[in-house]
């Protein structure tokens, strides 16, 4: 007996994916494909809500539902992160409408690919065994490769797609090889059974090697140093709305998989993965922030910033290296809270990048000087999102950093304290490179040769709605961080059984 209610969010989204293709076939004006996509994404929210409030409203026994022998689980974690993927795809579609409309590569399949990737994210949040996880991860990545190369005759877009593809498939190969080693030693791929595996088997060097391969695979997906080399090039070469999806949706999918694997499948092996994650987290923060300082292109700046943020999200996980089992839920909560805030503020920042490039005609920061003089609202939003990324209250970013520090220091061991010190130093460096372009946009003169675009994509209704949603999100989550805290705590319920 299949629990169709639990499958409904993915099923609605899956039907929307098909509907987008069919509508593309019959309508002449392709903007209707975007409308269908938005309606479908909104429709998928409804079953998410009925599942979340199932206990009080419909009298269900429990919010947690297990399907297919525990391979696919719908619980607080799956619901909250599923909502993040739907919301991210919603904003990404809004950001794309005018960009794609004004581009000569316009096809309805664009939205089909974006929706398919969002479906991968929703499945990823529910995946509780390695096979489901791999299929979900590739459902997110495959459309991403094609979207990055969307501008077929543009060599930079080709290059972006090829670099993303080669590193993405290499990551897949490493990850799956690691899974095959773990499976060979334990005979199971189910996270719940792996968590209860015989400690003698788990201590074998081959088992640690398998775990290392899995972590390296995820390292590519979340673009953590030293597996980040494709990130700035792919982000810059891909169409900017696609970059918004890759930096938020695709990266969140990688983190969701990583969190499931380390906290659900291998919580008892934190002395093995903790130090590995520590090195990657520290390297990501340092390299991301230091290299971001000298970037002169806004998308590359945000690309290196997203590498640095990957380090911040990994910090509470790294702190688990020497922590007791009781510390796990707090670190899990911190990583999820950071992911939620990261999604909102980066969608906003990339939205500003899309609108600004449409307005001033270039991503070079030199042509963004004096933005406040000719586009004051865009400059104000740029300041809001950049200062949020820097972690300045009362914008959302500060709460994510606070939760991260609390978990790292609260783990009460040398690994946690040292990663917290690295994070503090990097937060200071980050303020410099976020503030510099904002100051230039407000207080410097616009370059004389600047050709401003007339209205168009920079101020279309869809773009206004997308940026408006992100601004409200950053302000609300910053002023009322309780929202993030409640959602974050809701997701940790799945850890009460493990340990």
């Amino acid at each position, binding site marked *: 007996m299949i629990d169709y209610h639990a499958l409904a969010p993915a099923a609605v989204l899956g039907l929307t994916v098909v509907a987008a293709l069919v509508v593309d076939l019959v309508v002449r004006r392709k903007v209707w494909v975007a409308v269908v996509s938005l309606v479908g994404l909104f429709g998928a929210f409804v079953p998410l809500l009925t599942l979340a409030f199932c206990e009080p409203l419909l009298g269900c026994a429990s919010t947690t539902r297990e399907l297919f022998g525990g391979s696919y689980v719908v619980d607080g974690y799956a619901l909250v992160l599923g909502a993040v993927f739907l919301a991210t795809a919603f904003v990404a579609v809004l950001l794309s409408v005018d960009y794609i409309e004004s581009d000569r590569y316009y096809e309805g399949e664009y939205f089909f690919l974006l929706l398919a990737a969002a479906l991968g994210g929703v499945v990823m949040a529910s995946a509780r065994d390695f096979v489901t996880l791999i299929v979900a991860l590739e459902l997110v990545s495959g459309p991403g490769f094609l979207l990055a*190369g969307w501008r*077929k005759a543009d060599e930079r877009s080709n290059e972006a797609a090829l670099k993303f593809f*080669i590193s993405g498939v290499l990551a897949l*190969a490493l990850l799956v*090889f690691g899974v095959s080693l773990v*499976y060979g030693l334990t005979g199971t*791929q189910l996270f719940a059974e792996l968590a209860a595996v015989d400690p003698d088997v788990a201590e074998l060097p081959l088992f640690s090697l398998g775990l290392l391969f899995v972590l390296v695979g995820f390292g590519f997906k979340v673009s953590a140093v030293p597996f980040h080399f494709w990130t700035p*090039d792919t982000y810059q070469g891909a169409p900017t709305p696609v970059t918004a999806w890759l930096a938020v949706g695709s990266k969140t999918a990688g983190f969701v998989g990583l969190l499931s694997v380390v906290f659900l499948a291998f919580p008892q092996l934190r002395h093995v993965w903790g130090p590995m994650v520590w090195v990657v987290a520290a390297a990501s923060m340092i390299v991301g922030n230091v290299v971001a300082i000298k970037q002169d292109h806004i998308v590359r700046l945000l690309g290196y910033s997203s590498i640095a943020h990957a380090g911040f999200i990994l910090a509470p996980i790294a702190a688990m290296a020497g922590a007791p089992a009781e510390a796990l839920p707090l670190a899990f909560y911190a990583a999820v809270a950071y992911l939620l805030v990261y999604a909102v503020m980066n969608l906003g920042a990339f939205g500003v990048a899309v609108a600004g490039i449409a307005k001033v005609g270039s991503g070079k920061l030199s042509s963004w000087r004096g933005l406040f003089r000719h586009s004051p609202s865009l400059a104000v939003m740029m300041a809001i999102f950049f200062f949020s990324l820097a972690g300045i209250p009362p914008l959302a970013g500060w709460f994510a950093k606070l939760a991260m520090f609390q978990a790292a220091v609260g783990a009460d061991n040398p690994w946690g304290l040292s990663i917290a010190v690295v994070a503090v130093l990097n937060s200071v460096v980050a303020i410099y490179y976020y503030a510099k372009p904002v100051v230039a946009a407000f207080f410097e003169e616009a370059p004389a040769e600047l050709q401003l675009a007339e209205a168009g994509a920079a101020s279309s209704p869809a773009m206004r709605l997308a940026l408006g949603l992100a601004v409200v999100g950053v302000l609300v989550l910053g002023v009322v961080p309780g929202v993030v805290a409640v959602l974050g705590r809701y997701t940790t319920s799945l850890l009460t059984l493990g340990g």
Partner: protein
Amino acid sequence: MTLTPGWFMAVAAVLFALGGAGVLLRRNALVMFMSIELMLNAVNLSFVATSKALGLVEGQVASLFVIVVAAAEVTVGLAIIVAIFHRRPSADVDELTELHG
């Protein structure tokens, strides 16, 4: 000498390492991609060998999933590489330097 699953695992490891070396050393996008396919097939061999040794079927099912995912990746990858061949005479990754990175 009998062929134990350990031998198949050894072959899988060698294939995987060969594929990895191919990705790192070769500069033609098509050959790099073929090397990654070799790595994925090493994974399939490893899955099937361990599955046989353990007397379980899940590993063989997993290898079917990997084959399907790899096939999907082939279509995506060839589409990207064909798009590049449309623009330039070779798919040498060292010539792809439009983006400074």
